[in-house]
């Protein structure tokens, strides 16, 4: 029997670096932790940019006959808001969290392909900058530029050369195509890391839930992003080489674009929500002081979503006029996804049931997620019924539904994750008082904004209108929605202040402030570049529990 130090707590030496040295260290890095943080910070910057766009949209719609922006600008605003939120906020959040945490959780030194990882980040950032360059170069640099205005799903034939003059649509295509290459590179890397880089003893069944969810998420990215790239390449051929893929006058089909886009687009919403699932699956057990309830069922549910979600895309197209067989099939498959999602909600709740709950900020965000995501899921099941969808297609009900999944769902999960792992990444605690203030303001703001949208949809307000007449009965609800945005913005401002303040002056956190069980808490905070001095050996799904309770280790029961 040999006694060794494990896990290793070595002192980090804080050396003084000049600006250029620090800059070089970040730009030239291939370290998964730095790249992960760069992804997350980039995503937060784009979140603020696209959030301000949403603010302008809501300012325009706060009162009837609004004249803050003209119709063309409004079209650009909702296009850039949607595109940014999906491709430049959601996708880098996936990449950022999985980059930072997957190698730490499986006891690896780094990702499987560190240089590919760095390439993925920079090509993604380049794609994002290319998209935003359209504000300057959208009309080909002759005078005033313009951004894309074709909507985030860029339906054909609006994107044809005849209807989208100038280069703005090309910036949309190329920016997303290029950043998609980055997403695929990063997803490929996560898959290989999960399969080939696990530390001794960590079998697939002992992988933390977070890693499992991110593995399936990456699988979805690898399968579902290429269809978008393919469709965008076809669109480029149409626009630049005179191809006729989506040209209805030459026999092409505008509906085919919709199919191709949603073959990507629907798995994409699961790709976006999975990081929240992953984060919840780590935080809820730790703050309930119980192992996660029914882990095999949870893994099974995620895998099931990873396959079923590939076959539901046309529920976005009920109003297009498909055959009733297609409508029936896609209604049924969409409802089917509700089952594994329900399993997850039940299991998170069951994890909390009878637990010793700690209501700190990360946990508060998780609990709010559970309630709000349930609402989002239920409106999703409503929309999966084809006749119901015919009634409310392209109305504010749909806007309310998917903002409830992505803001009241994903963004809550992301905030929970940031509050939870901030001490790991910086060695400092975030301010709990400001955190709770942020939480309550954000809950109020989000619900004020997005609940009235459902009712606006029932009252017949279509999406993407730049203004409305005063006699429709929409005034009060629109005003409430816009006021909610103000509350959200205050909450986000408090969050940003909290992050900056805590980085500079936060209380020291120690290595394991939450008394958690996964491997990332075994190393120091922030972790050294090599993560673990000695490769850890694990024998259960909760290696740190085994360490802390040698008399009652988990592996005895597994």
């Amino acid at each position, binding site marked *: 029997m040999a006694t060794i130090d494990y896990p290793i707590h070595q002192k980090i030496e804080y050396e003084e670096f000049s600006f250029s040295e620090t800059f070089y260290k970040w730009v030239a890095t291939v370290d998964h932790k730095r790249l992960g943080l760069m992804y997350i910070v980039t995503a937060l910057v784009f979140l603020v940019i696209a959030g301000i766009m949403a603010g302008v949209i809501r300012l325009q719609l706060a009162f009837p006959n609004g004249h803050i922006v003209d119709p063309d600008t409004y079209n650009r605003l909702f296009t850039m808001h949607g595109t940014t939120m999906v491709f430049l906020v959601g996708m880098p959040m996936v990449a950022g969290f999985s980059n930072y945490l997957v190698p730490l959780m499986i006891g690896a030194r780094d990702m499987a392909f560190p240089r590919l990882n760095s390439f993925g980040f920079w090509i993604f950032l380049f794609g994002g900058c290319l998209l935003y360059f359209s504000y300057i170069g959208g009309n080909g640099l002759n005078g005033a530029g313009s951004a894309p205005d074709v909507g985030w799903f860029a339906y054909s034939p609006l994107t044809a050369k005849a209807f989208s003059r100038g280069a703005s649509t090309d910036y949309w295509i190329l920016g997303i195509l290029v950043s998609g290459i980055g997403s695929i590179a990063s997803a490929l890397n996560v898959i290989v890391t999960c399969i080939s880089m696990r530390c001794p003893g960590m079998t697939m069944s002992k992988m933390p839930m977070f890693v499992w969810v991110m593995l399936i998420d990456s699988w979805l990215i690898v399968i579902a992003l290429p269809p978008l790239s393919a469709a965008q390449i076809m669109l480029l051929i149409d626009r630049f080489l005179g191809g006729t893929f989506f040209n209805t006058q030459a026999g092409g*089909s505008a509906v085919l674009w919709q199919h191709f886009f949603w073959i990507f687009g629907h798995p994409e919403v699961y790709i976006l929500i999975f990081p929240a699932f992953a984060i919840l699956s780590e935080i809820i057990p730790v703050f309930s002081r119980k192992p996660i309830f029914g882990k095999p069922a949870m893994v099974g549910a995620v895998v099931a979503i990873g396959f079923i979600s590939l076959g539901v895309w046309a529920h976005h197209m009920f109003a297009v006029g498909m055959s009733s067989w297609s409508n029936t099939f896609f209604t049924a498959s969409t409802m089917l996804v509700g089952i594994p999602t329900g399993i997850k909600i039940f299991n998170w709740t069951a994890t909390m049931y009878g637990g010793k709950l700690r209501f700190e900020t990360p946990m508060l965000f998780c609990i709010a997620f559970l309630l709000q995501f349930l609402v989002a899921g239920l409106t999703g099941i409503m929309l999966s019924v084809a006749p119901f969808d015919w009634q409310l297609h392209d109305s504010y009900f749909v806007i309310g539904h998917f903002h409830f999944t992505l803001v009241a769902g994903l963004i809550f999960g992301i905030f929970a994750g940031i509050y939870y792992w901030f001490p790991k990444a910086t060695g400092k605690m975030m301010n709990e008082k400001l955190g709770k203030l942020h939480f309550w303001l954000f809950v109020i703001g989000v619900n004020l904004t997005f609940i009235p949208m459902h009712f606006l949809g029932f009252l017949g307000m279509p999406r993407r209108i730049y203004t409305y007449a005063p006699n429709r009965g929409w005034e009060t609800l629109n005003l409430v929605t816009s006021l909610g945005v103000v509350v959200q913005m205050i909450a986000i401002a408090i969050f940003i202040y909290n992050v900056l303040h805590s980085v500079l002056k936060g209380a020291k956190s120690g290595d394991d402030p939450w008394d958690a069980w996964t491997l990332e808490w075994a190393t120091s905070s922030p972790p050294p570049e090599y993560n673990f001095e000695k490769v850890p050996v694990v024998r259960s799904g909760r290696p740190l529990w085994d360490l802390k309770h040698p008399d009652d280790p988990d592996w005895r029961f597994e």
Partner: protein
Amino acid sequence: MQEVITEDALELSKNWKLPDRGKVGVLFLIVTESALFTIFVVAYIVYIGKSLTGPQPKDVLELPILSSICLLSSSATIVFAERALHKGALAMFKLWWAVTILLGLEFLVSTGVEWYNLIYKEGLTISTNLFGTTYYSLVGLHASHVIVGMGFLLLVMAVSLAGFPIQTQMRRVMFLSWYWHFVDAIWVIVFTVVYIIGR
């Protein structure tokens, strides 16, 4: 924190074997490329017979039998090359590798000739009709993959002719051959869809 590492834990880390990361990486690269090709193949199938103007596939397409045989047999010759490399027979490796390159080159040249005839004799370009658009996109996407593969094949040939000990890079040669098999398998699908079903 201290932990007593028991004998079985030491045993565990000694016997811990996971799949090669390069293999898994190439495998999933092939998966994601397959997803890309699937959409182009679907578009081709959807648009069969939908062209409003000529020329139609049956008027202008001829079966590329010889070049298909060349490309598919290059999958065999690259395996022979790999086997020779495993045995340490470097001369045989270079020979089979050169044959692979020549077979691939034949395929590219005959694709070029086919396109030349289609464009200048039959007047079919990418903007002529739906057939032209989907044909040049799908065959071009495949051909561009062959070109990328050719680049790597030539690289391996060049470095081994320059005296680089290529037997130290057996893994990478294997990954390249996997990619080459993938490109060949895609050609079977493209051939079936374009020249058999679509004609």
